[in-house]
């Protein structure tokens, strides 16, 4: 009995001598389905694919324990609180557009050396990925994907409007052509050419504006404290958006959910929205009887001004600044290397890869529509690395652009106000 008790006690007291790294992520909880799965290839959804990857890493690295901290989207209030408490995690998922906010305050560790240990250099990243993670000449995150706006297209309605050629949608090549296509589409189908989430979705208008300003190589932020948005180029773009709205060429007063349903149910031709909707719409396209059945295509934003461009963002893995032991650093390096080798699997979510090598993989090209949109990994552009508070700026711009598009304010006034408000915000930066 004593021996048995001693054995049980020793079992209870057995310590975990594995090296522990704390990984904090968003993308939700899916432990019910993928809690113990290591089969990355069959996992689905952002959460499922990432969870199985981490499970697989632990299975392949029995000396490392990965403690997962799932945070409410997007997790930045918690991360900031963890910094304030002096106890940040080891690795954290972060949008590339947010990295500057933390990097500028010295809260992140550069990761060049750690990634080099895993055999990763900046040259391995796509152009969009590099632009998102390199600040002041150093790598401050491992890019994980590129996300951005795309034209999701109902090809059946486009065919009805005569806007298909050899099975591919015909997209406009100038603002005037876009209006022509849209008017023709509406006359032929009785439905709006565009479906847009214009309510409670600040990204919609700002994505359009940034994309077409980047296409003209406009210097939107000449320095860290100045935005230049009250310009002839910006006015032209916003006036185009205003005309689309005023002439009834788009759905109106829809939030993201309503717009998503409208496109799913064939209520318009094109839904400009992000890479993340490819999966759900592809599923609709494979379901007989659904409005999108065999009638779905997705393309990058058409080149209306200047060169092909897309305003993009992306997810990345950052490493908060804190003291770490050598075994912990080695474990983190191995973890990042493991993830990088599986970046292809992540692209099954609909996002574009952050590693150039994935773009050339036959299995990536074989994924639905990826051949059509892969160019965005090269044409995708971000705001300069020194621009902080990008989310707050987006909110301010969206309010003003929305006022201009819906006719509440003249376009000139809205852009003047937008520039003033953003510059006020930037002037208050520490």
């Amino acid at each position: 009995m004593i021996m048995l008790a001693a054995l049980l006690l020793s079992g209870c007291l057995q310590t975990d001598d594995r090296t522990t790294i704390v990984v904090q992520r968003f993308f939700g909880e899916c432990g019910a389905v993928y809690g113990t799965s290591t089969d990355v290839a069959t996992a689905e959804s952002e959460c499922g694919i990432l969870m199985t990857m981490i499970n697989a890493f632990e299975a392949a690295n029995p000396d490392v324990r990965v403690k997962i901290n799932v945070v409410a989207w997007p997790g930045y209030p918690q991360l900031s609180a963890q910094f304030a408490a002096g106890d940040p995690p080891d690795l954290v998922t972060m949008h590339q557009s947010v990295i500057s906010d933390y990097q500028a305050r010295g809260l992140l560790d550069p990761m060049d050396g750690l990634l080099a240990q895993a055999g990763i250099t900046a040259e391995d990243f796509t152009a969009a990925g590099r632009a998102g993670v390199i600040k002041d000449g150093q790598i401050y995150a491992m890019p994980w994907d590129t996300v951005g706006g795309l034209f999701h297209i109902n090809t059946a309605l486009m065919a009805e409007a005569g806007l298909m050629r050899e099975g591919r949608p015909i997209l406009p090549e100038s603002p005037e052509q876009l209006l022509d296509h849209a008017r023709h589409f509406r006359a032929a189908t009785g439905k709006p050419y565009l479906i847009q989430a214009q309510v409670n979705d600040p990204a919609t208008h700002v994505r359009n504006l940034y994309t077409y300003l980047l296409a003209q190589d406009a210097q939107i932020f000449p320095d860290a404290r100045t935005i230049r948005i009250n310009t002839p180029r910006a006015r032209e773009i916003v006036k185009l958006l205003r005309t689309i709205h005023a002439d009834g060429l788009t759905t109106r007063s829809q939030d993201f959910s309503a717009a998503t349903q409208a496109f799913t149910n064939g209520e318009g031709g094109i839904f400009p929205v992000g890479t993340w909707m490819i999966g759900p719409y592809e599923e609709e396209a494979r379901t007989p009887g659904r409005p999108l059945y065999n009638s779905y295509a997705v393309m990058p934003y058409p080149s209306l001004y200047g060169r092909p461009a897309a305003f993009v963002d992306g997810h990345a893995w950052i490493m908060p600044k804190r003291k770490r032991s050598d075994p912990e650093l080695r474990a983190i390096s191995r973890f990042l290397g493991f993830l990088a080798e599986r970046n292809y699997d992540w692209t099954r979510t609909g996002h574009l890869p952050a590693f150039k090598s994935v773009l050339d993989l036959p299995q990536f090209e074989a994924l639905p529509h990826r051949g059509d949109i892969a160019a965005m990994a090269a044409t995708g552009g971000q705001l300069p690395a020194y621009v902080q508070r990008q989310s707050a700026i987006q909110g301010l711009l969206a309010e003003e652009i929305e006022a201009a598009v819906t006719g509440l304010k003249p376009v000139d006034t809205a852009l003047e106000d937008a520039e003033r408000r953003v510059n006020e915000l930037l002037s208050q930066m520490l």
Partner: protein
Amino acid sequence: MSRGRDRISPVALVGLLIGAAIMVAPLVWTLLLSLKSNSELMRDSAAAFSPPYTLENYHAILAASLVPRWLLNSLIVSLGTTAGVLILCSLAGYGFARLQFPFRRTLLALVLIGLAIPEQAVILPRHQLFAQLGLHNSYPGLMLPGLVAPFGVFFMTQYFRAIPVELDEAAMLDGASRFTLFWKVLLPLTLPAQATLGVFTFLGSWNDYWWPLISATTSDRFTLTVGLASSQMNYAQTSGLGFLMAQAVFASIPILVVYVLFQKQIVRAMAGAAVR
């Protein structure tokens, strides 16, 4: 009261029914949405009003490994906070209502000023203080801020003041000590107020999101509100609407139970009848 005086006019009845329907409609809608699959709702959220219905969203919640832990955390924090508030506010209320001591009015005024200070105004220093004390990711760290309850102190003070002083005098004549007077004579008389304050404190603590969000940063210390929020995918309102609504229903079940059990106290409190 005669039965005739209880009778309600048809017009008022119709008005009340319409009002009740307006109040209940979002709750019913939430419940129906929670019983539909996410993919079906992504196509058409109006599908909530027609069968078939499913429990798959509730299954997904219960299957998440940490949900029982989050439930336990919420219970510990809510019950602990409620007990602490009742003890502290009763003592403070008794003191302000019955004891004479220097600066009593000034102190009460200081406590009441707390009613005018929003939590957001003190969140940074409080967070730093708790960080220095190593209280984050702990039950005391989650409970302590809730114990600062100026409304509770005011509420209990008013209730004690409403109790006739003659009761104190009689008890003192019988040789009761101050503590015996408080514990055996006055405190039992405040039970309606205690119940009201307790229910409101429990509800507030259970529903709290902001402080647990930034104080509990490891999954095993999340309360139910923060844990369920962390379970949501991005764009949950579109591609995970059923799951989102099931979470809302699930999180509100304990609140519903508390409401059913303490309905009388809540209604009395809302009607302002708890303080006589």
